[in-house]
């Protein structure tokens, strides 16, 4: 009995406390920085530091370091983060960190399998981590709080995290029957590469291009399969041209 009375008392006390709590409600509130009522936030586009993410995609061109002939349509995709350090109205430093995905398509002459199969296509995919440091030239000095129109010239470096070779063949007598071979964990001659890139931007849009001068290329290995040997020294196509969208 005494327990139940205690419980009731607790419930009443609780309800009373809750009721007290809800007797007034703050329906609007705002805190102001009195020393600087209106200041541009750090994420503002033309502030000293501006960080934002971006997405770029486009096409790959150029030689791949082997006799294998790339088809038109190699593509890249990058997603990264950029920090802009404004030096003055007209110049800034830009630092990029990004993931890069490159995929090239090619024709190969050699049959990777045996006489009963006919090769019908293939592609090579590179998953890279890239960093870039560059200089930004802004052309509209009176642009206000905007990215404006700019040209970035940067040096970039990359580290290959992995790559894949995929070859598809069909049966010589019946093209409906296909076999796809995928080579993963491909040994690398070098995983590090570098090059230069440029970006012509207008607001959040940019025309982007990069060219690699050193490459992450595939090494020879114990796997001396017929198809594999011709890819010794293969690297991603060096020239990339595409569009970039900043967020």
């Amino acid at each position, binding site marked *: 009995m005494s327990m139940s009375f205690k419980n009731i008392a607790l419930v009443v006390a609780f309800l009373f406390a809750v009721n007290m709590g*809800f*007797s*007034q*409600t*703050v*329906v*609007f*509130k*705002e*805190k*102001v920085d*009195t020393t600087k*009522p*209106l*200041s*541009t*936030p750090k*994420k*503002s*586009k*033309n502030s000293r530091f501006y960080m934002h993410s971006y997405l770029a995609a486009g096409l790959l061109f150029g030689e791949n370091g082997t006799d294998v002939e790339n088809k038109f349509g190699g593509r890249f995709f990058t997603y990264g983060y950029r920090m802009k350090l404004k030096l003055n109205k007209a110049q800034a430093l830009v630092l990029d960190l990004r993931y890069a995905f490159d995929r090239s398509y090619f024709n190969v002459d050699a049959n990777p399998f045996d006489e009963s199969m006919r090769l019908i296509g293939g592609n090579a995919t590179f998953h890279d981590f890239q960093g870039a440091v560059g200089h930004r030239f802004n*052309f*509209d*000095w*009176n*642009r*206000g*709080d*905007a990215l404006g*129109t700019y*040209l970035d*010239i940067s040096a970039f470096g990359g580290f290959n995290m992995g790559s894949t070779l995929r070859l598809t063949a069909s049966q010589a007598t019946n093209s409906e029957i296909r076999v796809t071979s995928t080579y993963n964990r491909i040994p690398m001659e070098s995983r590090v590469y570098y*090059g*230069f890139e*440029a970006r*012509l931007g207008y*607001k959040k849009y940019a*025309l982007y*291009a990069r*060219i690699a*001068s050193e490459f992450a290329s595939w090494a020879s290995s114990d796997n001396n399969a017929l198809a594999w040997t011709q890819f010794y020294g293969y690297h991603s196509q060096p*020239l990339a041209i595409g569009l970039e969208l900043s967020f």
Partner: protein
Amino acid sequence: MAKCSLFILAMFLAFGSVQGQQKYYAYLSDKEGVEFQPDEYFHPKALERRERCGVKVNKTDFPLQQAYVQKIAEKSDSVGFQSRWFNMVVVWSSDERIAQISELPFVRKVEKAAPTGVKVTGAESEDDDGQAYLSQLAYVNFQLKRMDGYRFHKKGYRGEGVRVAVLDAGFTDADVHVGLQHVKIEATYDFVKKSSFVYDYSWHGTGVMGCIGGMFNDTQATGLATQATFLLARTERGKREYFGEEENWLAAAEWADQKGADLINSSLGYTVPRYFREQMDGEYSLVSRAAQMAFNKGIVVLTSAGNEGQNDWKYLGAPADADSVLAIGGINASNDRKIGFSSYGPSSDGRVKPNVVALGQGISAYGAKNKFQKQSGTSFSSPFAAGFTACYMQAYPDKTQHEVFNGIQESAHLYPYFDYVHGYGVPVAWKALGEENAWQEGDGKLISEGGDLYLEVEEKYFFEHLNADSSQLARKNIYFHVEAENGILMYYAVLNSSDPKTKILSFSDHPEAQTIRVHFEGKTLSHHLK
């Protein structure tokens, strides 16, 4: 590497062709030798207004020295609008040529006119064929009732004799809209297309006109100034454009001055990307300086605070930042408080902005093709206040622009209390006319107890406060602000309470506080700490 170099070179060349001709403002040093006949240039109403406001014709009203303009034209690609007020000419020129122009002895300074981001401050809208509009009559009534506007009408104040210039993005079908047939339109000009036709391009101005002085079925006013005379100026190309031209606003303001405008309503705001927040000091942007000059010429200027309250920009834009412009914020009809999107103040130099507020959400206003629309935005708060101001000016025809500016602020329901989202509150006619309100001011006191500040309201008023009807929504809100030593508010809030004794704050939460003010039921109480 060779390919890379070629590519970069190509990009430089491509960019070079984008650069080239730019727009500049060239400010001239004097108007030597220029003759001016005010009686020929100004409409008699303009001279009347200037006399009333004690504004004398001076050099800023004179046209530019055309010999100077001619010399600039010879050195530039082309010249455009010439501002009498700022002795300025718009110049299109290359960087090279503008350097030569800036060396001319009569050129005081040259400014580059960068792309701007203008936002017409209207938001969502829903079309309506008029039936739903009729069903919303109670709401339409409330739009005016919240300002106690019918008191003006009962006294015969409907803006008669007051000239209202509306600067907007277009006035589609305003000439044929059933709710605007009674309106007197004195003059129109499209400063974008340089023609007198303005009844196209955007419904926005049509909606704004309806909120200033529209009337439905010859009986139901949708704005208070149904007998005002309108001057319509189109100054912007569209609902939102990045290359808006502030000089169109300036040109329209000078035109409004010439045509005798007493009041300008501009539901446009210039913010990002053209400006930084710090530049919202009323002196930086051309449009704010133009609005200030219009006021100096005797014209009362009202502009919407903006719809940036929930965006990164957050604060008001130009010309709402100008010192003598009445910046109008938006409140919600359901709770009498700031609408989420209504822009925050103060100005970057800490002045009170917005100055006053009016309804701005779910507004029943006009659209194109004789339509009625449910619209939201501080674009519609500003014309409600403009209609109110026109009636006020009819009621007090001898008041100067300064007196009208102060009068509107002092007519607001929170005055002398203020904050940076509600300003001084909603202007109400009973205050404007110095009459008694339907409900008495509440009585209460501030009590400091155990490190906290409480508001204690007499029970009689407290229960009235709880039971306030929709026309007295303000009574439900308890406003308080904390002022720092430099006079800037460091904190402000609105409370709802169901207890006659309401805790306002703990002093320990605001160690820098200088003064705390609390407003409830028309009464402002102060507590000074230092």
